[in-house]
C-alpha cells in the first residue's frame, strides 16, 4: 500500500493553471519535477466561460500526453465576479442594517468621483433602496449593547425579505466588528425562514471598523456568491467528467490561492482574480533570478497593467474599488466611481493602452491614443478584418518593429500598406508630418501614458524605479518594454519565455492564503500587549480551521502577522509586518513602532517621532505553502547568435535612443537563441506570440532560464 501511495504521489506531479481573459483563455501545464511547461490558448466563451475553461484543459492534457489522474491540482483565475458587477448581473440582494442607517450604501463616501465633471454619476448601489432594511438595535464602539435587538422589528424584516424574491442578503450592523452577536442572530433568523437565500455577515467577511467599507465588501460578497458558486461547481463537474479529480484552487485578488469551496463562500476575495496572476508571475520570475524587486508590465490587446513587487511580494492594497476608475490613475477620487472592497488586492495601475488602442487627432490638432480600442474585432487596420482606424499595432508595423509576414508566427499576414494609408489619412496629413513620424508619435504617446503608470506604482508609492527590474510580457508588452525602461530610468529589463501566456504561470507559483483580521483601536503606548497576543491567537485558531479546506493542496499552516497603524489623529493607516519575535513584549512594540515610522517615511516622505501612534487593525494571513515547480534550466552554450539570425530589416528608432530614423536592425528567432547568447540593439527578437524590440544603446543576453535580459550598453 505504502509503495503504491508513494508511486501515486510521484506521478501526481502536473499542475494546471487556467486564466480566462476577454479574448483568449490561456492554459499552462507544468511538470513540477522537471519544470517543463506546456501552454494552450483557446478562444474565450463569454456566454459560458466554463466551456472555454474545459477546452483549454483538454488541449493541455492531450498536447502534453498527461494522464488526468496525475494532475496534482488545478488553479483558476476568473473574472466571473467582476463581470457580474460591471455588467449589473449580480444576484438580487437585500441589505439589513442598524436603525437609522438604511441609506449607508446610497450615501457611500459622499464624494464626487471626478473633480471637474459636472455630469458625473454616483454608482448605483448594488442593492436598490427598497431592499435595504433597518432593524432596531444598537451596539456602541466598545461593543456594549445600547439597544437590544428587537424581536418584533427583526420578524418584520424577515417577513419583508420573505416576500421580496431575493437570492442573497448582506447584514452589516454598526460596531459588529466588536460584537457580532446581533448580526449572527439576524443571520440565523433569516436562514431559518429562507434556507435557500445566501446570507453574508459583515463580521465574518471582513470584521474591521468603517461601516460603509465593511458593508460594501459584504454586499459584494453576497451578491456574487450565487453566481460564483454555480460557476465553480459547474467547472468542478466538468473536470470530474474529464477524470481530473484533484483539488480546484482559485486565484484571489491578493495573488494567493484558496480552495473552490472557500471561494464559493467568500467570493469577494477573488473579485480581481484575473489581473493578480501577472504580478505573481513577475514576482516569481524575479525571485528565481535573485531579483526580489521588480516592476511588472503586462500589455495586452486593450489595456496595460503595471504593478510593483518588493522583496518578492506584490504590493498589496486594501483601498480598492471594483468597477471604478481608480486603477486608471485618474486621481484620488477615482475609487468613488466603483464599489469599495476591504480585502487585499494586488496594487495595479491599469490604463487603456493596448495593441488595439486607436490613434486619432483631436479638434485642437493634438495626436491622441486611446482609450478606444479596436479590440480583436475588427482589430487593427493591418489585420484586414474591416478595421479602418490606426492602432498601436499598426504603428509598430509601419515602424518595422513587427514583421508583416511573421505575425502570430506567420499564421496571419499583416497588410502594411493599408496600415500606412490609415496613419497617413487619420494622423499624418492633419499634423503635416511623415507617416513614420506620425507612427512614431503614436508609439511615444502610448509609451508616455505607460511610463506614467510605471511611475504611479513606484515613485508615487515612494519607490525609486532605478532600484527595480522591469519585466515585460503580454502579447504587446515586449515591443515597448525597453523604451519604457529607458524613460523611467529602470536599468534592467527581463522578457520571459512565452510572454503571451506568461501571466498564467503566476497561477502555479503561489501559495494558499487565507485572510483574517480584527479591529483593535488603541494607542500603541497604551496598548495591552496580552490583548494583542490573545487576538492573534484567536485569529490563528480561525486560520487553522479555514486551512483545513486546503490541507490536501498545501503544506501545514504558517502565519504572517501584520498590524495596521497610523499616527494618532490620522484617518488612513499603513500595514506593518509584525516584528519577527516569538513574544509580544515591549521590545516587540518598540520594533513595531520603529518599523511604522520608517514605513511612513517611505510612503509620505517624513516621520513624526514625537507623535503618538495608534493601532487600528490586526491582520493574520494563514499560508499553506505550495512547493514551487522546478524552473527548466538550459545549458549555456557558446554557439553564438548567428544560428538564430533570421536577417535584417529597417526599423525606426528615435533620437532619444541615440539615432533617429530607419536603422538596419538584426532580427533573431527566439526559439533558436541559445542560453548565453549576447547581442546588441538595435535588434528585434521574434517568437510566435510576441516580438521584443531591443533599442540602440541596449544590450541583450539570454540567461540559463531562457529569459532575455536587456541592459544599457556600458
Amino acid at each position, binding site marked *: 500500500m505504502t509503495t503504491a501511495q508513494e508511486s501515486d504521489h510521484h506521478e501526481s506531479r502536473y499542475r494546471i493553471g487556467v486564466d480566462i481573459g476577454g479574448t483568449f483563455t490561456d492554459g499552462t501545464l507544468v511538470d513540477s519535477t522537471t519544470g517543463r511547461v506546456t501552454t494552450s490558448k483557446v478562444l474565450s466563451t463569454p456566454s459560458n466561460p466554463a466551456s472555454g475553461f474545459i477546452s483549454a484543459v483538454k488541449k493541455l492534457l492531450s498536447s502534453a500526453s498527461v494522464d488526468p489522474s496525475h494532475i496534482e491540482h488545478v488553479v483558476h483565475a476568473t473574472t466571473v465576479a467582476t463581470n457580474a458587477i460591471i455588467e449589473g448581473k449580480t444576484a438580487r440582494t437585500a441589505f439589513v442594517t442598524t436603525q437609522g442607517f438604511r441609506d449607508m450604501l446610497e450615501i457611500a463616501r*459622499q464624494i*464626487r468621483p471626478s473633480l471637474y465633471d*459636472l*455630469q458625473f454619476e*454616483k454608482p448605483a448601489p448594488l442593492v436598490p433602496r*427598497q431592499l435595504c432594511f433597518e432593524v432596531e438595535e444598537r451596539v456602541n*464602539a466598545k461593543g456594549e449593547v445600547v439597544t437590544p435587538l428587537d424581536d418584533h422589528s427583526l420578524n418584520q424584516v424577515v417577513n419583508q425579505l420573505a416576500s421580496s424574491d431575493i437570492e442573497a442578503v448582506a447584514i452589516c450592523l*454598526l460596531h459588529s466588528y466588536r460584537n457580532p452577536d446581533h448580526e449572527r442572530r439576524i443571520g440565523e433568523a433569516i436562514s431559518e425562514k429562507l434556507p435557500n437565500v445566501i446570507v453574508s455577515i459583515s463580521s465574518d467577511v471582513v470584521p474591521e471598523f468603517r461601516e460603509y467599507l465593511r458593508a460594501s465588501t459584504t454586499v459584494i460578497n453576497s451578491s456574487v456568491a450565487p453566481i460564483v458558486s454555480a460557476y465553480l461547481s459547474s467547472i468542478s463537474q466538468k473536470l470530474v467528467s474529464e477524470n481530473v479529480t484533484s483539488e480546484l484552487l482559485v486565484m484571489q485578488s491578493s495573488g494567493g490561492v484558496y480552495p473552490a469551496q472557500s471561494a464559493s463562500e467568500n467570493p469577494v476575495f477573488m473579485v480581481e482574480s484575473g489581473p493578480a496572476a501577472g504580478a505573481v508571475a513577475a514576482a516569481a520570475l524575479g525571485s528565481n533570478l535573485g531579483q526580489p524587486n521588480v516592476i511588472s508590465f503586462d500589455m495586452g490587446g486593450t489595456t496595460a497593467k503595471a504593478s510593483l513587487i518588493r522583496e518578492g511580494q506584490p504590493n498589496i492594497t486594501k483601498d480598492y474599488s471594483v468597477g471604478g476608475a481608480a486603477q486608471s490613475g485618474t486621481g484620488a477620487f477615482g475609487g468613488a466611481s466603483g464599489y469599495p472592497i476591504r480585502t487585499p488586492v494586488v496594487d495595479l495601475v491599469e490604463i487603456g493602452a493596448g495593441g488595439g488602442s486607436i490613434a486619432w487627432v483631436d479638434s485642437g490638432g493634438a495626436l491622441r491614443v486611446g482609450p478606444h480600442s479596436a479590440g480583436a474585432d475588427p482589430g487593427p487596420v493591418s489585420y484586414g478584418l474591416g478595421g479602418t482606424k490606426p492602432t498601436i499595432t499598426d504603428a509598430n508595423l509601419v515602424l518595422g518593429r513587427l514583421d508583416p509576414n511573421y505575425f502570430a508566427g506567420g499564421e496571419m499576414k499583416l497588410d502594411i500598406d493599408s496600415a500606412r494609408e490609415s496613419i497617413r489619412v487619420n494622423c499624418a496629413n492633419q499634423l503635416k508630418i511623415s507617416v513614420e513620424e506620425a507612427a512614431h508619435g503614436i508609439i511615444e504617446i502610448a509609451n508616455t501614458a505607460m511610463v506614467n503608470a510605471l511611475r504611479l506604482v513606484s515613485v508615487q508609492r515612494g519607490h525609486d524605479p532605478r532600484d527595480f527590474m522591469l519585466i515585460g510580457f503580454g502579447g504587446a508588452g515586449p515591443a515597448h518594454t525597453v523604451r519604457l525602461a529607458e524613460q523611467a530610468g529602470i536599468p534592467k529589463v527581463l522578457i520571459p519565455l512565452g510572454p503571451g501566456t506568461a501571466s498564467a504561470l503566476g497561477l502555479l507559483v503561489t501559495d494558499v492564503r487565507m485572510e483574517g483580521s480584527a479591529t483593535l483601536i488603541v494607542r500603541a503606548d497604551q496598548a495591552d500587549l496580552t490583548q494583542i497576543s490573545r487576538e492573534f491567537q484567536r485569529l490563528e485558531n480561525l486560520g487553522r480551521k479555514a486551512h483545513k479546506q486546503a490541507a490536501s493542496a498545501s503544506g501545514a499552516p504558517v502565519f504572517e502577522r501584520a498590524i495596521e497603524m497610523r499616527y494618532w489623529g490620522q484617518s488612513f493607516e499603513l500595514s506593518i509586518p509584525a516584528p519577527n519575535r516569538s513574544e509580544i513584549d515591549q521590545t516587540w512594540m518598540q520594533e513595531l513602532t520603529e518599523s511604522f515610522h520608517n514605513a511612513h517615511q517611505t510612503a509620505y516622505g517624513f516621520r513624526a517621532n514625537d507623535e503618538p501612534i495608534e493601532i487600528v487593525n490586526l491582520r493574520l494571513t494563514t499560508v499553506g505553502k505550495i512547493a514551487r515547480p522546478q524552473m527548466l534550466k538550459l545549458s549555456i552554450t557558446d554557439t553564438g547568435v548567428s544560428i538564430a539570425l533570421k536577417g535584417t530589416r529597417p526599423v525606426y528608432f528615435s533620437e532619444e535612443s541615440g539615432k533617429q530614423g530607419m536603422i538596419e536592425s538584426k532580427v533573431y528567432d527566439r526559439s533558436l537563441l541559445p542560453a548565453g547568447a549576447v547581442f546588441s540593439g538595435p535588434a528585434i527578437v521574434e517568437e510566435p506570440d510576441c516580438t521584443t524590440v531591443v533599442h540602440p544603446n541596449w544590450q541583450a543576453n539570454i540567461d540559463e532560464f531562457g529569459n532575455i535580459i536587456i541592459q544599457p550598453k556600458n
Partner: protein
Amino acid sequence: MGDIEKSFLDFDGFSDDVVNLQVEITVDGENVFFDFDGSDKQRRAPVNSTKAMTFAACAYALRALMAPDMPVNEGFYRHIKMNAKAGTVVHAIHPAPVVGGWETQVRVNDMLFRAFADGLPKKVPSSTKAMMAQAGFGIIDRETGEYHCNYEALAGGYGARANSDGPDAVQQHGQNTENAPVEEVESHFPMRVSRLSLIENSEGPGKYRGGLGMRRDYQFPDDPATFTILSDRDIQGPQGIFGGLEGRKAYYILNPDCPNEQSIELSSKCVIDLKPGDTVSFQTPGGGGYGSPFERDPRAVLKDVIGGKISIDRALDMYGVVITKSTREIDSDCTQKIRQSRTKTRRLP
C-alpha cells in the same frame, strides 16, 4: 453685454441682512471676464471670501465647462479676467473675518453656473447645496479630562442636469471631503451618530430632479458638549433651472422628533451648549430641478416612489403622476389628463 446673475447668502451670522452677490460674465474674444460689481461690501460677520478664493471659483467653473482633459496651466489662467473690488465680500481686506468665507465662495460658484446657463444650457447643472455644511463639536472626555473636538462637512443634493438627475447626498463644486465613518467618530468621542440618511421628498422637482439632501444626527447621551454650525440655506433651498423647482432648504434642529416645545430650529451659523441627552439634527438641502416636472418620465417618478425617495402624494403634487397605491403602478390616463390640464392652466406645483 454679458449675462448678469445675482445670488445671496441667507444669513451672515450677525445681522438678518442677506449677503448679496452679483456677477456679470462677458466672453470677449479669447478672454472670459467675470465682473463682481454689485456684490455687497465686506461684513463684520465672518462670511467674507478672499480674492484668491473668488478667482478659484471662476477658474473652477471655466475648467468644468471646457474639454475634460484640457491641461490647467498658465495659458489657461491667462484668459480669466476678474473684477472683484477690494473691500467687498468677494475680495475681503484686513481686518475682515474670513472663517466662513467658503459659504460665500461656494455660492459664487453656484451663481457662476447659473450665469452661464443661457449660453451653455446642456452643460450647467441646476443649483447644488452651495454651502459648506460645517458641523463641529467639542467635548471633554470624562475618563481623561482631555478636551476633544471634531469637525466635518456634510454632503447635500447635487443639481439636476440637462440629461440626468442630480446625484443624492454628494459633495459640491470645489468641495470633495469624505464623510467620517460613524464607527471611527464613535471610537474617539463619547457620542453617537443616531441617524445618517437621505432626506425623502427633499429633491428639487424637474424633468430631471435634484439630488436628495442628507441628514446626520449627533447625539450626546452622557456628556455636555458644544456644537458649532457654520453653514447656510436656512431661508431658501437651491433654485431650479429652466422650469425646474427648488430643493428643500436646510434645517438645523435641536432635539428632532420630540414634542414641539423641546424641538428647536437653530440658525445656520451658531455655537450652542448641549446638555447630556441632547441631539442636533443637521439636514442639508436637496438639489434644484432641471426642466418642468410635468415632463419627467413617469417611470422615473415611479422608480423614486418604489425606492421611497419620494412619496405617492408628492408624485402627484409635484409631477402630476398618478400612482395606484395598492399595485404601485402608473395610471397613465389620469397622469396624462392631470398634466395636460395643469399645463393649460399654467398651474405649477
